[in-house]
Structures are given as structure tokens and as C-alpha cells.
């Protein structure tokens, strides 16, 4: 019976494997939780910095409804973000008009029509495009799009909603393409095979079977593009014209929420009302991108359930 008691002893003893397993569990847990901690920390920091403004000078109706963003006015500074929201929204909206057809078209081509090597090269190219820094896009907006818009549309200034919208659209398209292509690839081949066996043409297979099956993923891709548009700073700072304005046409210059923070934060005294008001814009942006990303996430989750 000695073997049995030996066995019992070994069952009761923590060996090396047990400790390694425990250690790895802890490390993985820490790295997982740290991501959440950082996000919560950033949100807490932004909120704290903007909190003073929220308490004393803040009027929610002025903040959301006034088109006047005049924090440096000596007599009566006003902090209305309506024009900035309009700027961001118009640029993002135009950007989506540009990016959605381009990226969906590209994703359908890469996912459904291109084959073998061509597909691989295109995917690498798309990923390269996605990696272009936003300041480069802003530079293209300033030096190429600006004179081009002046020449083509015969307008005095080429830094406006049109310029920024196109630049932002081209910028968001590669990421949207990449995600949309993933969504198409997630549609099992047996669906395509079954539809083709019924005599459906390639296009019929795509629009009757593949697109409906991938629609949540595609919507997720679009929403992530919208999130990108709201959050983008450098390119819109350079291409919008950076003038506070509720745009009446695509040729009007505007200013974006993000660009306002980037341009003004360095010139304000820490703790001043202006400084705190900029952080309040930060809170606002954080909430909007959070809502967009959450929606996108919930939609993408929706596909997996099916």
C-alpha cells in the first residue's frame, strides 16, 4: 500500500507546474486589467481637469447650443461648442460619403473577386495605406488638395469642409476596408458554394447571400470609421481652415473639436477657466467616441451570436 500513500502525498503537494500556472494566471490577469485601469485613469484625469469648469462657469445650454467659442474674450468669454460640433460632424459626414463606397467596394473586390497573389498584395497595400501618419494626410490637404480645390471650384480658399472631408475619407477608408474584408471573410464558403450551385452568378451570390450575412460586420466597419473621423486631430487641423463657423456649404472653413484642443491647450494657463473648458470638450469627445465604439462593438457581437 506504499504506492497508494505516495500517490496521496503527491496529490497533496504543489509542484513546479502548479506554481508556474498560478504565476502565468496572475501575469495575464494583470495585463488584462491594466488596459481597463488605463482607460478608467484617463477618463478620471480628463474629468478632474474639466471638473472645475463644470462646477462654476458651466452652463449646459451655452456649452451645447451657443455657436460662440470665445474663451479669450476679455469682457465676456463664451464657451459654446455648437460650431465645433458642426465642424466635426460635417467633416466626418462628408468623409463617410467618400469612405463608405470606396471601402466597401475595395473590400468586396479583395474578398470576393481577387484571388491568390493579387489578393495578398492588395491586403498588404491596404495595410500600408492605413499606416500613413495623419500629419502626412494633413500635409497632402494643405499642399495638394488646397490649390486643387481653388482651381477646380473657383473658390478663394481651399481649406474647408470639402478638403478635410476628402482627406479624412481617404484616411479612414483603408481601415474600414480591412475590417469590412474581415467581415466578408467570416462568411463561410459553404454559403457561397450553396448559392453558386443554385445557379446564382457571382454578383447574385454576393448581394443575395454574402452581404446580408456580413451586414453587421460591415456596419461595424462603418461605425469604426465614424469614430475615427470624430477622433482625428492633426489632418483636420491642417485641412479644415480652422475657422469657427457653422458651415453653410462644403466650401466653408470649419473647426473641429479635436483641433481646438490641440491648438489651444498649449497656450492656456493650467487651471484657468479656458484650460478647464478644453478638458470639458475632452470629456464630450470621450463620451461620443465611447458611444460610437460601444455601438460598433455591440453590432459586431451581434454577428457572432447568429
Amino acid at each position, binding site marked *: 500500500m506504499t504506492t497508494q500513500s505516495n500517490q496521496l502525498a503527491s496529490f497533496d503537494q504543489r509542484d513546479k507546474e502548479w506554481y508556474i500556472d498560478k504565476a502565468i494566471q496572475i501575469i495575464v490577469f494583470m495585463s488584462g486589467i491594466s488596459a481597463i485601469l488605463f482607460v478608467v485613469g484617463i477618463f478620471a484625469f480628463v474629468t478632474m481637469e474639466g471638473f472645475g469648469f463644470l462646477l462654476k462657469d458651466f452652463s449646459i445650454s451655452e456649452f451645447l447650443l451657443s455657436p460662440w467659442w470665445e474663451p479669450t474674450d476679455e469682457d465676456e468669454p463664451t464657451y459654446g461648442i455648437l460650431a465645433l460640433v458642426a465642424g466635426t460632424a460635417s467633416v466626418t459626414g462628408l468623409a463617410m460619403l467618400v469612405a463608405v463606397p470606396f471601402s466597401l467596394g475595395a473590400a468586396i473586390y479583395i474578398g470576393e473577386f481577387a*484571388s*491568390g497573389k493579387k489578393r495578398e498584395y492588395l491586403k498588404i497595400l491596404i495595410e500600408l495605406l492605413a499606416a500613413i501618419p495623419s500629419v502626412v494626410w494633413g500635409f497632402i490637404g494643405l499642399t495638394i488638395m488646397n490649390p486643387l480645390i481653388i482651381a477646380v471650384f473657383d473658390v478663394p480658399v481651399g481649406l474647408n469642409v470639402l478638403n478635410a472631408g476628402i482627406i479624412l475619407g481617404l484616411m479612414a477608408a483603408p481601415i474600414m476596408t480591412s475590417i469590412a474584408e474581415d467581415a466578408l471573410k467570416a462568411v463561410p464558403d*459553404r*454559403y*457561397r*458554394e*450553396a*448559392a*453558386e*450551385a*443554385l*445557379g*446564382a*452568378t457571382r454578383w*447574385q451570390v454576393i448581394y*443575395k*447571400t454574402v452581404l*446580408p*450575412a456580413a451586414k453587421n460586420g460591415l456596419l461595424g466597419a462603418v461605425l469604426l470609421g465614424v469614430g475615427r473621423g470624430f477622433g482625428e486631430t492633426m489632418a483636420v487641423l491642417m485641412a479644415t481652415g480652422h475657422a469657427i463657423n457653422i458651415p453653410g456649404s462644403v466650401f466653408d472653413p470649419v473647426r473641429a473639436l479635436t483641433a481646438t484642443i490641440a491648438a489651444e491647450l498649449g497656450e492656456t494657463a493650467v487651471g484657468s477657466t479656458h484650460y478647464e473648458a478644453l478638458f470639458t470638450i475632452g470629456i464630450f469627445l470621450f463620451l461620443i467616441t465611447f458611444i460610437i465604439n460601444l455601438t460598433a462593438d455591440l453590432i459586431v457581437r451581434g454577428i457572432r451570436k*447568429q
Partner: protein
Amino acid sequence: MVTTTEITPKLQVKDLTIRYGSHTALSGVSLEVMPNEIFSIIGPANAGKTSFLKVLNRMDTFNSEMKYDGKIFFNGLDTRHLRNHYALRRRIGVVFPLPVGLPMTVYENVALSPRLRGINNKAELDVIVERCLQRAALWDEVKDRLDSLGSLLSGGQQQRLTIARALSQEPELLVLDEFSIAVDPVTTMRIEEVLKELKEEMTIILVTNLVQQARRLADRTAFFLNGECVEMGITEALFSGEAKDQRTIDYIEGRFG
């Protein structure tokens, strides 16, 4: 042997060899399937049965690795150099071994093929959908939930949905690839009854793992083994001890496979 002088065979295969890259899945198969017969193909896994079916409706275009040599005639027409293989596929209904409920409602699954043919009249579609679902022995189970997703049906129901969908093509040739894998025995028997009726209207090729199923249904049977057609003949003859090849006898009697 069936005399083949007068009638054009529905399907004529001459010296068919199928390769995936350097791997040969099927070599030198020649056979003819006559109109309104049930022709069954039996054989163990890896015999080349499914590959054979795939070239019949030119699904080889789906897989760039897949190449075939030899000739296939459908209604006497060579299918290799078709301009429009979509038109060919519309006339051949295929039921895959694993059910594929397309991600749309039950109704739309069955109405898809008529719609592709250009039938958009709701009343007309209703009639087709009901008839096809009844024939596939599925109507009673799904008539109250035609609007729920086809992919939410159980495995056996999805398989019958696939059969209904193939029938909605009103095919001249119906190809069934081990349809009974995911279906319970009672339903299998019901579908077998339906196949016997369908024979009046169309030609059926039945690939099956169940040797007895071939015996129950098929007019003629071919035995495939390792990419080769070992033997082919009138089903009753093969099963009543007239098979010439020892391997056929062994397989039919369940000694291997």
C-alpha cells in the same frame, strides 16, 4: 446493361480524371446516366465520389486547385467550354452532405432559386415554396415559421430545407451527396419515397454511404474505390451475387469500407 442506342443519355462521362494539384482524386471514369433513372454511386471515403459530383455542375471553377480531364456531356452538350456555366447549374440541383441553410428565412431559402430565374410574383412563389417543402417532407414542421432564419432549424430540418431548395430549381438532374447523414431514419425513408416519385420527372444521381439505400432506390449502381470506378451495373444484379469484382462483393457485404 441498359441499351443506349436510341435515347440521348442525360449525362455522359468519358474518361474523366480529376486532380487537386498533384493529387489524383478520380481516374479514368466513364459512365452514362439515362433520363429518369436513379443512378447511385457507392464506395468508401476518399473514393472520389464528391469530386465526381463537383465537376458535373462545374463547381470546379470554385477551387483553383481542381482540374479535370476527359469529357462530360449534359443532354449531349459538352460542358467544358460553356460560356454560361450559371445556366448549367440552374438545371442541376445539388444537395450537399452537410446541410447548408443560407442565412435567410426558410421561405427565402426556397424562393431564392425561382427568384434568380426571374419569378417575382408572390402568389407564384408561395405555391413553389409550399410544393417544394412538402416534397422534402418539411412543410408540416415549418409552415408556421417560414419567416424564421433557415440557419436556426435543426440539422435534419436544414438538410430537408436544402433538398427543398434543390427542388425549387426544377432541375433536370438532381444530385444528392449522402443526404441521409444528418437525417433521422424515419425522415430518410420519407425522402426515399419522394425520390421514387421524383424519378418520373427528373434524373437522380445518388451518392450514398448506405449500401442498402442504393439497393432500395437505384436502377443502376456504380462502385467507386480509391478514385476508380471498379464496377457498374444494374443494382439488383450487383446485389444478388452477379458482381464480378471481388472488391465489390466484399464492400456490398460489408467486409470493408
